[in-house]
């Protein structure tokens, strides 16, 4: 058993056992409270630049499988767990979580008191850290050195990671969501009716799958694509994806989106929601420790119903910064009142901060994909009764 060390910028150090790749990585240390869905978390590009602590203590139990990845590879910088299973037990597993992360070069620290770490982050806020799982070949990692490295690493605030993880080239996507078991209640995919151009800021595959499932043909474009180039693709709708990092530096993207508002129906998720907020004159801010989990209650102000939702965001749009003459708040987090969704009163534009595509998480908010289809169908909001 090799030792691994997690050092935080405030000087807190955790020592544990090293798994995964024997490397050292730096990132913002954040925690996710979902019990299931670690593979989706590993592969969600929104986690780039982040070392992820999973609060559920038994991780790796069901291995990893080809169908559950949210992108081509893991994006997390490192993984922090209480106990890491080297055995995988599930009929869909292709490999163990250990193999999956080792191949991808992701280090894992296991056996540490993750609850203490989470309580620490909860009270002090997320912070930078270094995870050193450098292995036996090298000397024991020096904690002081690691703390120093953490302090010298770039801060998440002001960082444009979306452009970095975005696709370099345009591509098409046509695969719908499929069942994971012969007993899955997944409906058959709808007929393809619309062409949607999706801005890739670090897009999760399940968004693509759900859009196809709902009836879209997709053209995925890089984060730097101009509004003119998007319009030239003659889309029925534009989708703004999730992604990592601070939304504020994405001034170019916000400008493009502003040009598209009113021209074409727009749907944004997560970072896409924040970019829309910025494009429509709002401001964003960093949350103390973010929302990362699969159990957040969000109320839909239009229907009055509560959805249990999947979250992964460290920043949020300030509702006080929005012009409520033009915009209408549609979704609010019941835990802390965070803005979770809004729509334009005059144009077919809406977005949510959380993840209706789930993966991981509950499916309560899938209806939003159908709403996007309706919007493209009708071109505007139905009249209010």
């Amino acid at each position, binding site marked *: 058993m090799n030792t691994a060390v997690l050092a935080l910028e405030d000087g807190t150090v955790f020592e544990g056992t090293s798994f995964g790749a024997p490397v050292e990585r730096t990132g913002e240390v954040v925690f996710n409270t979902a019990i299931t869905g670690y593979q989706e978390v590993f592969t969600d590009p929104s986690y780039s630049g982040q070392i992820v602590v999973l609060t559920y203590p038994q991780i790796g139990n069901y291995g990893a499988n080809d169908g559950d990845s949210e992108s081509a590879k893991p994006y997390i910088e490192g993984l922090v767990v209480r106990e890491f299973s080297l055995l995988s*037990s599930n009929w869909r597993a292709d490999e163990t979580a250990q193999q999956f992360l080792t191949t991808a070069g992701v280090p894992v620290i296991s056996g540490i008191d993750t609850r203490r770490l989470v309580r620490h982050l909860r009270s002090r806020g997320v912070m930078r850290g270094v995870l050193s799982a450098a292995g036996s070949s090298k000397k024991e990692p020096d904690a002081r050195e690691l703390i120093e490295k953490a302090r010298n690493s770039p801060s998440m605030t002001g960082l444009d990671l979306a452009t970095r993880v975005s696709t370099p080239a345009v591509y098409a996507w046509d695969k719908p969501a499929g069942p994971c078991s012969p*007993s899955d*209640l997944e409906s058959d995919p709808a007929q393809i009716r619309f062409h949607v151009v999706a801005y890739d800021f670090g897009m999760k595959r399940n968004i693509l799958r759900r859009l196809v499932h709902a009836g879209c043909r997709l053209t995925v474009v890089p984060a730097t694509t101009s509004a003119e180039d998007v319009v030239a693709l003659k889309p029925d709708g534009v989708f703004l994806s999730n992604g990592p990092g601070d939304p504020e530096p994405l001034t170019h993207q916000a400008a493009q989106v502003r040009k598209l508002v009113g021209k074409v129906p727009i749907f944004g998720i997560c970072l896409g929601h924040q970019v829309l907020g910025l494009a429509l004159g709002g401001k964003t801010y960093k949350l103390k420790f973010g929302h990362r989990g699969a159990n957040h209650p969000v109320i839909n102000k239009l229907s009055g119903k509560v959805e249990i939702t999947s979250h992964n965001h460290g920043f949020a749009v300030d509702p006080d910064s929005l012009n409520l003459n033009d915009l209408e708040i549609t979704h609010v987090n019941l835990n802390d009142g965070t803005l979770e969704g809004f729509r334009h009163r005059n144009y077919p534009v809406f977005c949510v901060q959380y993840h209706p595509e789930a993966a*991981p998480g509950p*499916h309560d908010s899938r209806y939003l994909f159908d709403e996007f289809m309706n919007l493209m169908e009708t071109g505007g909001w139905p009249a209010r009764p």
Partner: protein
Amino acid sequence: MPRRNDLHRILIVGSGPIVIGQACEFDYSGAQACKALRAEGYEVVLINSNPATIMTDPELADRTYVEPLTVEYAEEVIRRERPDALLSTVGGQTGLNLSVALAEAGVLEKYGVELIGAKLDSIKKAEDRLLFKDAMRKIGLDLPQSQLVNSVDKGLEFALRIGYPVILRPSFTLGGTGGGIAYNREEAEEILERGLDLSPVHEVLIEESVLGWKEFELEVMRDLADNCIIVCSIENFDPMGVHTGDSITVAPAQTLTDREYQMMRDAAIACLREIGVDTGGSNVQFAIDPKTGRMVIVEMNPRVSRSSALASKATGFPIAKIAAKLAVGYRLDEIKNDITRKTPACFEPTIDYVVVKIPRWQFEKFPGAEPVLGTQMKSVGEVMAIGRTFKQALGKGLRSLETGKADGAGKFFDDLIEARLITPNPDRLGYIRHAFSRGYTEEQVHELTSIDPWFLRQVREIVDLEKSIAMIKPESVTRAQLIEAKRDGISDSHLARVWNATPMEIREKRKALGVQAVFNRVDTCAAEFESFTPYLYSSYESECEADVSSRKKIMILGSGPNRIGQGIEFDYCCCHASFALQEFGVESIMVNCNPETVSTDYDTSDRLYFEPLTLEEVLNICDTEKPDGVIVQFGGQTPLTLAIPLKEAGVPIIGTDPADIDLAEDRKLFGKLLDDLKIPSPDNGSATNVEEACEIARSIGYPVLVRPSYVLGGRAMVIAYDEDTVRRYMQEAVTFSQSRPVLVDRFLEDATEVDVDALADTTGAVLIAGIMEHIEEAGVHSGDSSCVLPATSLAPDVVATIRSHTEKLARALNVIGLMNVQYAVKDGKVYVLEVNPRASRTVPYVSKATGVLLPKIAVGVMLGRRIADFTDARGVLDVRQYFVKSPVFPFNKFPGVDPTLGPEMRSTGEVMGVGENFGEAFAKAQVSAGTPLPDRGRVFISVNDRDKPGAVALAQRFHELGFEIAATRGTAAAIRAAGIAAKTVFKVNEGRPNAVDLLKAGSLDLVIYTATSGAHAFSDEKTIRKNAVAYRVPCITTMSGARASAEAVASRRRDPVRVWSLQEIHGAAATAKSSRGI
């Protein structure tokens, strides 16, 4: 949607006596519902026949009826109280069934009572297998394939189509007789032929087998606005084939990917919507084929359940409380999460620990029943353990069981490994461990058990770690090694055993190395938000969240898993101790590991430690909390066994001194004390070897009662009529030692037994709370005997003697708090059988009957107050009605077991009947116990020679009451000789039709069958008694019980159906009195 203002008065139906499959989890849910609804300003009317529950405390409802849960009596309650609504979903299956029966009988409609929680058609859809199947098919959910067939050919054809093995269930046979599992065509043919023959409608259900599939459960809540949440997922360690109640279960699910989990979540919510559970909690069970991932829905319960109690404790989300609020119109997002205070209850709890539930079985109490687990639940209780990892939780769970073999010290046999792995049984986990230690691979064990490889890996790693620890020299153990062991759930006592030390030495070593337990919080949110509820579990992490207060604090040790002889009654006492402490302004700290109980509700005490009741864990808590006192006298035997070691470790025990408690158990010292006090007891002695035991028996004369010391519930107690029995008992049935001798007592035949509960304070004042006269004669365990308050046949001088003895004993033993004394009265002489200076099983019953909360006063006196501060009563407490307590037995779950009563306790629960006369109270108790006595028909009497004279009088009484008399030859002759008509019935071996034939044909309505010689019952008798149980004909095995039954029958013919609430019995005066002196 706020609360409904059109409802004012709500009837809650409880679940009745504790039986296998329905235990105190429904006291927990019912009590929560009562509290929640009253807090919302509703008037609550409650009906429950179980007096040992917290929910039937008069303080919890506006009107509390301890009355039978039948349509007849419930209608009377409804007629008197006119509730607006009936909450059907918090009283288990019993509550649900009664609600349905009331609806179907038109009672609800007649009195305009609305069913809330679950509607009639939803209940039916969920409960009726065919309706359920159709409903699930309709929404696209998969079920095991099945078909009803009425020919062997059709059956074989279908079996071929779905593939073997198949499950066969003949329609309408009793208890599933004639069914089975067929692994091939030959077996299917055989079972089909037999099953079709046995089925009165010539029909067999063939079902696809899902044996060995992975089993899961989701706890779902839904509100009127269709908001749905999953409170908890549970994965069973034991795959399909073992009843969930008999499975080791784990929360949350461990081996599902998010996609599979979400698929299950969608299915569970779709199920609730289709069944139409508008509000409240339900549990939905699934099975998954581990090879293909195919998922079938197994069943759903449209009510709170055992699993929902577990889920509530596992997550800190109070399902029953929230369900009650949803039932009166609230939405989930309108209710706050108690624990975080800031966030709403409309969310899905997430946990950062692992919870393991392990059942507790007691097959040893039912000789003749095979210790095999299947689809019928057999366990009598359960424990839950919380750990940061599965391994830690499993280790804690195993030692919470108190089986004495927690640390793998049980006896295992190599040649039994495969058999014990293949067929599920109570020792299976032990055998899995044993198999690993003998070199079996995970694959081999999986092959034999079908248990998920992930679980097996965990168990194997524990076994490996134990092996490697055994290799370490204790002197050279490092801090890291110790931490690893503790983090993986290995106990100090295990380390002590392998390192040849005492657990206290290990504890010292551990502390010297800085390896100390810390406490983490159950907070519903994996530390994402601050928690305001000190609901704690121990771990060996690096940060302690106990955040102890500086208030004066008292710790209460609970009673651990329910078992026969130690169950809800002790939890009742512990809860009241806690309530009383809070009332007295003292912080209450509860320690317990039983997830079914009210005591482990985070709302009950100021602080809750969900921990095993072992010396190690209790001392760890004491290290952190430093309580001003610890109460050990309320939790039954469990805390008492810890009392002396705790005291030795410097923990302040309050109340009666552990040394005095111990003295009452010590034969020699106690014998001397009785001599000094000049209180007679049956001749006795204690033996530490076979010859000594025989010698004592000879000198005091047969029959004798032999039993081990330090047991509760008459475990392994027998009445011996000859030396052979004593010899055999000493050789086979009991383990004994110098420090744990076997006790031999003269057995007083035909004596009347009396139970006394009393309170004593530091000034020497003694208050006798109840003198309970047993209905069965001495020899039947007090827990298995019906008893009555007030005593009906004791002469005033006998009562005076009992009172005087009790007072002397209490003073001599320096009792501070509660005391229970058992007496036998024979020929006017009062003998002391046993003294227990602690809370007894009868405390809740006496509290209900007298209207005086005994545990509260007990806590008061432990804190230094006087009894007189609480009540003006002196001497013996007054009782205003007749209150009969009757036991409830699990014999129907253990076919093949003789249901006769004896010194070994076998009842799982109790009921109380209230009446204006003894007969009425006894009749109602029997109705509540599920063995209602007939008011007409034919009584069958067969008694031994000694009882013949009594039998004649009995026959006379039944004859007067209009019964026909049937009797076996000898008894019939005696009855006829007295001029009463009696039909002679053959014994089983005398010809046909015999008594069993008549039973089966339904032509006997009551059986009175006393044992022939006490020592060995003949097989004939056993057969008749067993069949009486199987055909649900009341069967009485003692003469005194038979006489009581005659009185009950007379009452049924004479008295109208009437009910009384505890509030009206005890009146306003009693309520005022009980709140005095606070």
